[in-house]
């Protein structure tokens, strides 16, 4: 059965009971990452929400930084009811006061989340595991972050800067491996300057999978989700856990300040963490890393349950965020040579 058919059947199966049902469903709007997330949430979460709570959701496909920018530009009238964000933009949203205070008690399914995964800011809905992706037909498996700076890897490496969460934490891990720290990037920039002329590409994060697929780069840093997705499309790619450990972070949902659909927003987030939705999202073709303790992550994810996330490298975004603008600008300059 093709992916499309399977996806269609899954969506239809979940939606059928709701068809022709209750009129006057509550309407809400949720921001969602474009691409895989958008597809997955439309197919899995939206039908479930309609069926269980009679809520219809309109999706607004926006990257995390675009959600913050749009909510900020709207000055108090939220363009959507729910944000979905990675740690960096989450801290920006907190600093800018873009979220309603979150009450985890309003999530009936909160028991499936590990302790601390729902707080007064929002709730975790998916995890991401970041490490090194490589083409096993072209290069041997890299042992760790330092390897990327050796000539045989550097000449096939795709670099992306501090603009995204996965890019930032990967570069921080490299800085640590080179003798720096979470807040000291100097050793990293010195090494980047050295390999700059030979690296295969320096590009926007969204361009990386395409460059990998085209053979322009054979090594990059990314999450397990991208690796599994590319491999499911026939690209020779494997995930390497660096010797210092893979880094992990959670994607969180937040209710927008002044949202008019607060009850529906809680139902939406609750449905998102529920076991049926987390199970469907963890499978082909979506490959999400579940945060629900009852759901087993996919084969590429180097953990058997979200409880193991404590073994992974995590980062303190309240310390990273104030420094990030400076790193972004320095990365531009160092790469321009």
């Amino acid at each position, binding site marked *: 059965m093709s992916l499309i058919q399977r996806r269609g059947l899954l969506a239809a199966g979940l939606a059928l009971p709701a068809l022709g049902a209750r009129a006057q469903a509550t309407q809400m709007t949720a921001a969602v990452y474009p691409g895989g997330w958008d597809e997955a949430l439309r197919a899995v979460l939206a039908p479930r929400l309609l069926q269980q709570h009679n809520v219809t959701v309109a999706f607004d496909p926006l990257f995390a930084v675009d959600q913050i920018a749009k909510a900020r530009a709207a000055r108090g009238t939220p363009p959507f009811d729910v944000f979905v964000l990675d740690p960096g933009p989450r801290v920006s949203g907190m600093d800018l006061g873009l979220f309603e205070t979150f009450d985890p008690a309003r999530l009936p399914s909160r028991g499936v989340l590990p302790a601390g995964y729902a707080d007064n800011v929002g709730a975790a809905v998916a995890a991401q595991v970041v490490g090194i992706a490589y083409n096993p037909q072209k290069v041997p498996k890299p042992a760790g972050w330092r390897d990327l700076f050796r000539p045989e890897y550097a000449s096939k490496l795709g670099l992306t800067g501090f603009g995204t969460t996965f890019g930032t934490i990967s570069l921080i891990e490299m800085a640590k491996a080179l003798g720096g720290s979470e807040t000291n990037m100097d050793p990293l920039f010195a090494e980047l300057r050295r390999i700059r002329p030979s690296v*295969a590409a320096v*590009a926007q994060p969204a361009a990386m999978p395409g460059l990998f697929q085209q053979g322009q780069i054979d090594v990059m840093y990314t999450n397990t989700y991208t690796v599994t997705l590319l491999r499911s499309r026939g690209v020779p790619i494997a995930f390497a856990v660096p010797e210092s450990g893979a880094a992990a972070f959670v994607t969180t949902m937040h209710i927008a300040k002044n949202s008019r659909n607060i009850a529906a927003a809680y139902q939406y987030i609750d449905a998102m963490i529920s076991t049926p939705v987390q199970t469907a999202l963890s499978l082909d073709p979506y490959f999400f890393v579940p945060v629900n303790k009852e759901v087993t992550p996919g084969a590429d994810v180097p953990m058997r349950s979200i409880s193991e996330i404590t073994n992974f490298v995590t980062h303190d975004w309240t310390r990273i965020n104030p420094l990030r603008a400076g790193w972004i600008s320095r990365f531009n300059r160092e790469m321009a040579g």
Partner: protein
Amino acid sequence: MNGPGVWRLALPLGLAQLMFFAAPLLILLGTSLATDEHLREGSLRAWREVLGDSFHIQSVVNTLRLGALTVLATLLLAVPLALVHMAAGPRLKRAILIAAVLPLLTSVVVRTFSWIVILGREGVINSTLIATGLSATPVALLQTEPGLILALTQIEMPLMLLPLIAATARIDPSLLDASTSLGASLARTLSRVVLPLALPGLIAGSTLVFASAATAFISQSVIGGGRLNYLPALVWQQAMVVFDWPLAAAMALTLMGSVLMVVGALNLLGRGARHA
């Protein structure tokens, strides 16, 4: 149509431009002169950072140079084709016109991504070079300025070709015959008859290609990559990733101002040539 009230026909578009272009532009200017996007306090910090920093100045220069080199490359290819079009019969004329318009019918995103397939390390050009033994290792094309100019030349070509063909098509063929029968060589006919008459088309085409190539955000970031710095990507980064709106506004106005200066100079050139 020349009645005294005819200006009223321009009212709908004029008002729309005022509301949706002029007013936001003023807000942009205000933002560039403030400490943050709330416009509560004034500050020249953003402008100092743009104009007083060699990295930003270099990015302005890179952007303008990219526009200029793309104009040159499109001119080199478009002028001969326009001459062929002039001399061709009606069927070939139609074929050339269709070929010129066709790329416009595919999205610029598609055209940009196809250039990755062509220029990449394992792309069409490199596989050919290696298969024919012209090169032992892949040549760096993607993420280099020449590669970007090559791609932009194809992407922007219709913008040069269409005004140029429109101008040359209006040249009366009897003028060429007259020039030849008066003893002028082909070169002299081209330079003294065809070129001056085609100049408005050349200038219109150059203006469009320059403005479009200098601001081609997608092509610049996807094909150019992070080692080449151009203003459009820096504006996006400051606005959307760093949230420094004053700096983004100042860069956006710098981009607009510098492109407008070049476009203005091109127009002056056209006017000067017409009066000469």
